[in-house]
């Protein structure tokens, strides 16, 4: 095989140096990336959990007296910040409506409209159904008081008016149930 002018060259089956250097560069990198995988740098835990919920007095969309948080004391309260333009809100809507209907007197549900027009919300609720009041939040003051990052965000408030839990993103049946328990709902 060896031709004139070409050095005799016998390839080793495995170049161990290349293997070791490669692993030495790559292994720590992969380890660091994996360790950080579950982390979300955008999530900041709410300092409000465990404290009294900020009070508000907001007008319901379909008219009537303003709703205040103080008036809801005595039962767990679920406050859902949402908008019609938010696809995850759309996804959790049916669950919230059916849970609100089935719990009726044992817990109160409140929707707070986040950056949306009243007609849009009326149209949405007419099509998708509703079981609890949606409150208009002028200038997003209440959303700011609750420290909303984006919608949907849902707060679970216990009978004494303390924030027991918070959920970011669309609710599913398990987390809704678990967080209602945290807010003191009897099973």
């Amino acid at each position, binding site marked *: 095989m060896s031709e004139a002018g*070409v*050095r005799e*060259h016998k*390839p*080793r*089956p*495995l*170049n*161990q140096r*290349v*293997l070791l250097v*490669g*692993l030495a560069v*790559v292994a720590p*990198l*992969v380890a*660091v*990336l*994996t*360790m*950080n*995988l579950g*982390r*979300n*740098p*955008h999530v900041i835990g709410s300092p409000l959990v465990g404290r009294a919920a900020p009070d508000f007095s907001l007008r319901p969309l379909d008219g009537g007296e303003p709703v205040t948080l103080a008036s809801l004391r005595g039962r767990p309260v679920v406050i859902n910040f949402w*908008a*019609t*333009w*938010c*696809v995850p809100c*759309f996804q959790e809507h049916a669950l919230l409506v059916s849970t609100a209907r089935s719990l009726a007197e044992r817990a109160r549900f409140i929707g707070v409209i986040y*950056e*949306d027009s009243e007609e*849009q919300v009326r*149209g949405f609720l007419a*099509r*998708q159904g509703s079981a609890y009041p949606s409150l208009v939040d002028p200038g*997003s003051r209440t959303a700011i008081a609750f420290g909303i990052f984006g919608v949907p965000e849902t707060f679970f408030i216990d009978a004494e008016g303390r924030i027991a839990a918070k959920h970011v993103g669309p609710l599913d049946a398990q987390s809704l149930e678990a967080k209602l328990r945290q807010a003191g709902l009897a099973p």
Partner: protein
Amino acid sequence: MTAAIGRNLVLLALLVSTVGAVVAAATAARRSAAGWAWTRRLAYLFALSMIAANGLMVWALLARDFSVSYVAQVGSRAVPDWVAVVSLWSSLEGSILFWGLVIGAYVGVATWANRDRHPEYMPWAVAVWLACGAFFAFLLAGPAQPFQSVSPVPADGAGPNPLLQNHLLMAIHPPFLYLGFVGMTIPFGLASAALLTGRLGHDFLRPLRTWLMLPWTFLTVAIVLGGWWAYEVLGWGGYWAWDPVENASLLPWLTATAALHSALLSERKGVLKGWTVTLVLATFLLTILGTFMTRSGVFNSVHSFTQSAIGPTILVFLVLALAWSIALLALRIDRLAAEGTIEPALGRDSLFLVNNLLFVLFTFTVLLGTVFPLLVEALRGVQMSVGRPYFDRMAVPLGVALLLLMGVGPALPWGRATPAQVRQALVPPLVGAALLAALGAALGVRRPWTLVALAFGGYTVQVTLRELWLPLARRRRAHGESLGQALVEAGFVRGRRRLGSYLVHAGAAVVIVAIAVSSTMGESREAQLRVGEKTEVGDYTLTFVAVDQVSEPHREAVVARVAVSRAGRELGVLSPRMNQYERQREPIGTPAVRSSLFEDLYLSVMNIDPASGQLDLLAMVNPMVGWIWAATALMALGSLVALVPSRADTRL
């Protein structure tokens, strides 16, 4: 209905890419001609199904078909049609779909271009390309499904991220970035094929270099377009922040640039083949790392997409690609034996090695700075940022050294140079160095690093111009041609790669000098103004004339009208503004830039109150920023010149 068709197209892409990868690998192992025909058909079918899936999504976005989940998420009736099209890559699932389009197109074109060439390598290459394609088709079929059905169908959607609607550049930067990132799959496949066959012949280095240079060109343009966008939109007056995701795009660029140079040495001297292949593999791996960084939520950045199952899936792919690359290198690198040697003396060959060393050092520096904060947080739970000081301290000497090398390397002859040759080559360009440094000093440059950059820039520009001129002069002497004839013959017909490369060098030298000058020689001022008041920055006088409120279909804007004059001469009115998009709480500022040949006047609204008429204005004079954009265009032009196949290639 639309969603179901889209899902089926994605499934078709997944099926043909998986089957195609298997068929291609079997073809490569058995050298079957019929297998190669089937491999090609499956590769084209993969390309077509990805193109069709993207066409369908664009149609759904334009038709505002909110029954498709991705359209429901990013579509809106309120946005203009160009924004609707751009929404294709504005959000996570769509960006992966667009990735599929680009990989499909690349695989289709690269397979077609090499259908009759390199029969021993190509089936392996196509196998690797289709395996990568299958991964992205899998992402689209599972974790990043953009074609889910939404029921009941919402009446309207939220529209894409307003930052994407704020400037036309955002329609151009991402496609270029994808063409650069995804395109690195092609050289990755070719390099893998070289390792799998255990050969990297002279004939195969050409396509490797060409298919590396094409995405390199797109990536170069994309990185600078990203900087330009930041400059024109974000309003802080800069174009580069060492943001993790900016670094993610720079890392593969650095290794690809190193690979282009080492491939040239492999081609000319038959050396460094294993090293060239390693750099090509590393480039691809860094693009996947970059993709992971933007899509995993691990890094906090303006570029981040939201967190999802896509992150872990990409990490798995990264680990597989890393394992594949390391195993392949360890098993086969020894077969890519050198056919020549590098002169162990001062000459162009040895400076190629220095070039590679500097680029690799640069890569590790940036990689370390990007990943280090993650390490600290994982170990100690503290959020920290390495930030600009580290990067600037490391990048400035490296950039300046590369600038000098770009002058010294091409000045020296190949092989071993005698001391007299070295003197003859290296002394004359000192004139250019002295001239540019003196010019800078006369214009007020005092910082040592900026002066050094100017001197090295002058040196390199003189060498580059001489190298561009030499072939012309030789032809004119030898053939008695006119200047025009000589230019066409020497530049475009015969020495196209050479001409192209030196145009790229000229552009790169100007970019580095312009970065050095613009980042150290600017002036800035923050002022609080009421209507009628003036402020000054540089030799400009700025008068706050009025506040206007402008209503556009998808946004409201508060616009500050600022009259600009210099030395008593009116230069017109600049209108920096604050845009308020529907459904976004925070307004987004858009600066106003007045560019002239040597400097930009840059006005940005920090805050504006239409009621009281008070304006907080950031005013800057940024010298030479426009040169970065122009010189990048020169680099792109140069690499296009080098990429056009020459006569010799078309004969093959």
